[in-house]
């Protein structure tokens, strides 16, 4: 197992390097000059002279060749320093540490919700295939898959504001500081994300369970008189969960980086909002480091998903 993990981590290195090169180049080739922002905030557009541009580039180290800039950045990262935002010099790691827990909490709550709602619905729908329950479940699944979580979030906000004159807090409240305040901030975004994810989970669970239900070993288990609940729990559920774990893992990887649209809908100051902020301000260093972080999260989540297969399916042994 440890050899497998080591191999996977080694394979991840070129992936991460590829991500860093791509985002580094992307920031430099997409149109739009971050230096223009220096003077465009207050009095409209101001034309920078060539001398001014040169001086500004030099002050930010942007006058160096690309490969030097890239190596500087990588050197910083390897030293555990994510650098600071372009202009205001705030440490990026500090911002990530403050906002990351909120995005992570929302993501984990959304995934937990999707399992709590989606897996039972999917299993029930599969067990009673083509029944009224199945039909209703499938309608609900289709509805919530089609419903963008951003739009759902806006509906929730609209409802709570108009009916209760209340909305989730818009400043960060950490779980360890004020659990109730924190939940009032994170629960509804998690619900908006989780409902859509529940539908996807339910659909995946249903189709996987349907496949398993017709396997020979299930028929055998039933034939030998095993109780239906045991058949479902021991044989159907575990085997049907493999694809669900895969899709959930990928979804979690995306959500941990901050669900940008839902964070925007609820005005949650999480990592997704931070990325949008970085893009708005053309803060290259912020964007580069956040994308690097997302890449790392994806690699780690994928590894965890792969390792979880061994737990769910004893036939999978990585040493072999």
């Amino acid at each position, binding site marked *: 197992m440890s050899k497998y993990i080591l191999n996977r981590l080694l394979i991840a290195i070129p992936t991460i390097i590829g991500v860093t090169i791509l985002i580094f180049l992307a920031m430099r080739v997409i*149109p*739009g*000059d971050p230096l*223009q*922002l*220096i*003077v*465009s*905030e*207050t*009095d*409209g*557009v*101001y*034309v*920078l002279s060539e*001398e*001014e541009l040169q*001086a*500004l580039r*030099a*002050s930010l180290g942007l006058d160096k060749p690309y490969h030097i800039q890239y190596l500087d950045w990588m050197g910083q990262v390897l030293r555990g320093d994510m650098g600071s*935002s*372009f*202009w*205001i*010099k*705030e440490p990026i790691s500090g*911002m990530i540490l*403050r906002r990351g827990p909120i995005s992570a909490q929302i993501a984990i709550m959304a995934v937990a919700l999707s399992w709590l709602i989606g897996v039972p619905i999917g299993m029930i729908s599969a067990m009673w295939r083509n029944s009224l329950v199945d039909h209703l479940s499938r309608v609900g699944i289709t509805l919530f898959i089609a419903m963008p979580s951003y739009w759902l979030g806006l509906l929730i*906000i609209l409802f709570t*504001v*108009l009916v209760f*004159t*209340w*909305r989730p*807090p*818009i*400043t*960060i409240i950490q779980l360890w500081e004020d659990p109730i305040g924190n939940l009032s901030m994170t629960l509804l975004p998690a619900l908006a994300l989780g409902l859509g994810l529940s539908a996807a989970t339910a659909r995946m669970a249903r189709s996987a369970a349907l496949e398993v239900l017709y396997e020979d070993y299930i028929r055998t288990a039933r034939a030998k008189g095993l109780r239906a609940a045991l058949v479902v729990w021991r044989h159907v559920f575990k085997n049907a969960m493999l694809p669900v774990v895969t899709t959930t893992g990928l979804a979690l990887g995306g959500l941990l980086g901050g669900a940008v649209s839902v964070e*925007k809908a609820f*005005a949650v*100051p999480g990592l997704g*909002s*931070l990325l949008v*902020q970085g893009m*708005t*301000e*053309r803060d290259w260093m912020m964007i580069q480091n956040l994308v690097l972080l997302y890449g790392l999260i994806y690699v780690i989540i994928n590894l965890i998903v792969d390792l979880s297969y061994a737990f769910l399916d004893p036939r999978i042994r990585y040493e072999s």
Partner: protein
Amino acid sequence: MIQPKKFPSKDNGARSVDRRTFLKMMAAGASASVLAACATAGAPAEQAAAPAAADTPTPVPMPEPVTSGAGMMRPEGSPKHGGILRTAFGVTMAHFDAHQGGGTHVLCHMYNNLVRNNLVDGLRTIIPDLAESWEVDDGGLSYTFHLRAGVKFHDGEPLTSADVVATFNRILDPPAGIVSPLKANFTFVDSVEALDDMSVRFNLNSPRPFFLNLLTPTNALIYSKKSLEEHNFDLRGVIAPGTGAFRFVEHLPAEKWVMERNPDYWDAELPYVDGLEMLHVPAWSDRGTAVLTDQADMSWNVAKETWDEGQNRADIVRVNKLANFGAYWVFINNREAPFDDARVRRAIHLAVSKQNLAAAFGTQELINITRWVPQGDPYATAPDVLATLPGYRAEKEEDIAAAQQLMADAGYGDGLTGIELLAAAGPQGELLAPAFQDMLKRTLNIETEIRIVERALLGSEQQTGSYQLMVHTRGHGVSDISPRGNLWWRSGGSQNFGGYSDADFDALLDEIDVELDIDTRQGQIAEAEDMLDANPPEYLVGYTFHLPMWNNRVKGLALDERAFAEWGRMETVWIDEEA
């Protein structure tokens, strides 16, 4: 000749100020010294300002006796000390240097200007700030400001004339590596010199009736010489100490700013609140819901739908609709055919209905149909007059016929094809540009293709001139036509990206720049607007309204009386817990 307009009256109807009165208030004291002579601590500024509305015009602020207490703002009612004011609007900025283009809607609370707009009379007069009084000599060529005694920066350093000189020298003659967007506003200032520790003189090469106005925007704040020198004149990464009513406490990027009351503020009565908590709420709709749900006490500008809801919730919030100095435009590249022909630009000006554009964009932002000078400026054309002018009136039949004739005269009677209309992604590209495109097609048979780009790219497209028509925004902190005209419409102006050139307009602008007589200047500005109508540099969709919303507890900012929108200082605000 355009008839004088009535200046926007206060909502509560307690007092209305007509254009002439306002002009006199602005010019006359703009008040420095009028208020210096009259204002006393504890007296409502409205009362103090009354003498400024004398019958005889006062073209240039004249010297007045220095009186202690000048510029002390006192709101109506019985202000109470205490509490924290929570605001909801976007509080991010690319950097912290106000003079290099950093946003000042947050940091302004930490600083003072030499002069400022009066918070308690709805920004209708200019009053002393760090300058307790001033004198104007040599027919407007010399402004001597006398600084307030005992003012200290937040680091304990005393304010002296050296700080003012260092501040303005950096603006006028920035050191290498420093960008100075404000420099273009002060091209007529030859030098700034310290006469003694507490007096500063600005030497102008020609008089400017709006000079004091240029000192009022929040970005015309005063830094300390020590801060500037310590950081090699570059404050982009530095929250430099100011002299303002609030001191910096905490900045959580893209989340909130926290400031506390400055106990050593030069006006011992202010500020009333113990601190400010400025929440980062970039989305307009979230700002409105934040105020409605009592997560914030006020916002400078909320979404229309939440503003509408606020109107129905008078039990908890109040709202207003304020003229703003930023506008939506369709920029026209005057350098290229067919738009190098004034008749084509005039035809577009006449044919495209501003009312329709305002309606199309109404779900996003309220458009204030105006002429070239924005509402909120004393020289703006009154709405009732505007409603009768070709190009501005709602009835388009006659205008469209005239426009079609102009197109025919220019040789484009059959219309035009292959014109590119550039717009930003989002509401501008999705609502304004298609509406404009549709009206061009239906009225003048001009076929355009919309090209959508990211908003941040429009500026560079504009500067390189790689566009024909472009939907975009543009504004200026000062409403007077002179600074705007010199930047935007003068031949070779630094922001005249479309290459507009009209020698007659340039000559008239030269006169407007230096004209000190109010009535003469008013006539000149009306003539300039006529010129711009006849030979438009671009198409003006309209200036915008800002829609502030505030909790009923929030007092002391005269938000319901403001002449125009300003995301500025708030030291007179107080919280009425009993409201």
